[in-house]
């Protein structure tokens, strides 16, 4: 069998063991008949081996600490929390603006009860807990059953955690928080970019059943609804369209329980 004359490229592919078995045999046969060429190829092979041997110790050294990839990724994330701090500052500024409006409170009084109050509580909780890089949740998702047991006990009813992972949001944990209307349970989710969402839920004294309604304060958007005496609000700093679909998904899952 003959695949054409042996080329310089074949010789190098022979050295690099990059030839197919047939061509390899052809090249070897050719070299057997050309001792000078064989000598040159042998020299290239030796050169290859020695280059590898000379540089091998570098690859065998322990990796220096400044090249620790996981740590570098973490440092990169920390620099991104600066953006979260900016978001938290924005929330604070909005809060100050809110205080300035105190004199107008008889006109623009925030809702004290019902779904409007729940929306307020959820937005406040998001503003406080979502930017928290140390302990955004009290109980992590890894201790999910403990969290569910605790929340169910405090709310005196079984609570369930909607699964938003098909939309890219992982459950990261939760906590019980205080509201003017009793205990509420907060669940937090995040996606691969570290974007967080908060789902707040508590018993409703009024608005026991309420259709889903959008609420927003500054850049924070939420969707609140109530079903059979339990109110929910899903809050985040993402597009209202995406948030709406996530809220629909949560409502669908919670309605089936």
């Amino acid at each position, binding site marked *: 069998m003959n695949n054409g004359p042996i080329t*310089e*490229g074949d010789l*190098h*592919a022979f*050295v*690099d063991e*990059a030839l197919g078995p047939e061509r390899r045999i052809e090249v070897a046969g050719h070299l057997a008949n050309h001792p000078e060429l064989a000598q*040159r190829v042998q*020299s*290239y092979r030796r*050169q*290859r081996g*020695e*280059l*590898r*041997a*000379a*540089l*091998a*110790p*570098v*690859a*065998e*050294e322990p*990796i*220096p600490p*400044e*090249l620790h*990839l*996981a740590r*570098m*990724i973490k440092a*990169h994330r920390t620099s991104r929390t600066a953006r979260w701090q900016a978001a938290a500052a924005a929330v604070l500024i909005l809060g100050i603006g809110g205080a300035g409006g105190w004199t107008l409170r008889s006109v623009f009084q925030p809702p004290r009860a019902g779904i409007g109050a729940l929306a307020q509580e959820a937005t406040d909780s998001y503003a406080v807990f979502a930017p928290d890089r140390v302990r955004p949740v009290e109980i992590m998702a890894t201790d999910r059953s403990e969290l569910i047991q605790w929340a169910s006990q405090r709310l005196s009813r079984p609570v369930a955690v909607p699964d938003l992972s098909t939309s890219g949001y992982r459950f990261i944990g939760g906590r019980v928080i205080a509201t003017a209307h009793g205990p509420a349970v907060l669940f937090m989710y995040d996606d*691969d970019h570290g974007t967080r969402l908060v789902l707040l839920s508590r018993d409703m004294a009024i608005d026991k059943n309420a259709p889903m309604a959008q609420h927003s304060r500054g850049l924070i958007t939420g969707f609140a609804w109530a079903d059979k005496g339990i109110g929910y609000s899903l809050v985040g700093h993402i597009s209202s369209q995406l948030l709406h679909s996530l809220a629909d998904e949560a409502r669908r899952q919670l309605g089936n329980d």
Partner: protein
Amino acid sequence: MKVMTLLIEPLIPALRRYAHGLMRDRATADDLVQDCLERAITRWHQRREDNDPRSWIFTILHNLAVNRMRQRQRRGPHISIEDADEDALALPPPQEERLRHDDLMRALDGLPADQRALLLLISVEDLSYAEAADVLKVPIGTVMSRLARARERLRRAVEGESTRVTAPGAHLRRVK
């Protein structure tokens, strides 16, 4: 980013080895690898999924190395005590072998940078000819001819012949 750690972390020893072979200076080499990893972290999400992570990261490292070598050229050759040959070898092998390796590395230094880079990618890092063409952004024919020139030139340098004479028809470009 978990995926990134899984795919890139095992390549760090090879990245260090390539940078060392190319720059021949421990501090510069590790500095380059650090720059390379930082760049990789910020660009990870822009990476095309079908792009082989090894070619991808070697391309980043190679481009950084080329820039660094250009800077060196502008400032004139940088010769420091740290550049002394034995620093490439962490665990000194037996004396005779070490001397031979030192000669080889010195001969490698005498090669133009583009030949040196290619020889390291093919002979040491086991990149395929197509992957090397991808990293160096040259046609595969250039990879083959450059590889032939590099091997022949290195052979003659090690075997004591003049490095000015190389494979017939080879065109040499002095880089430094």
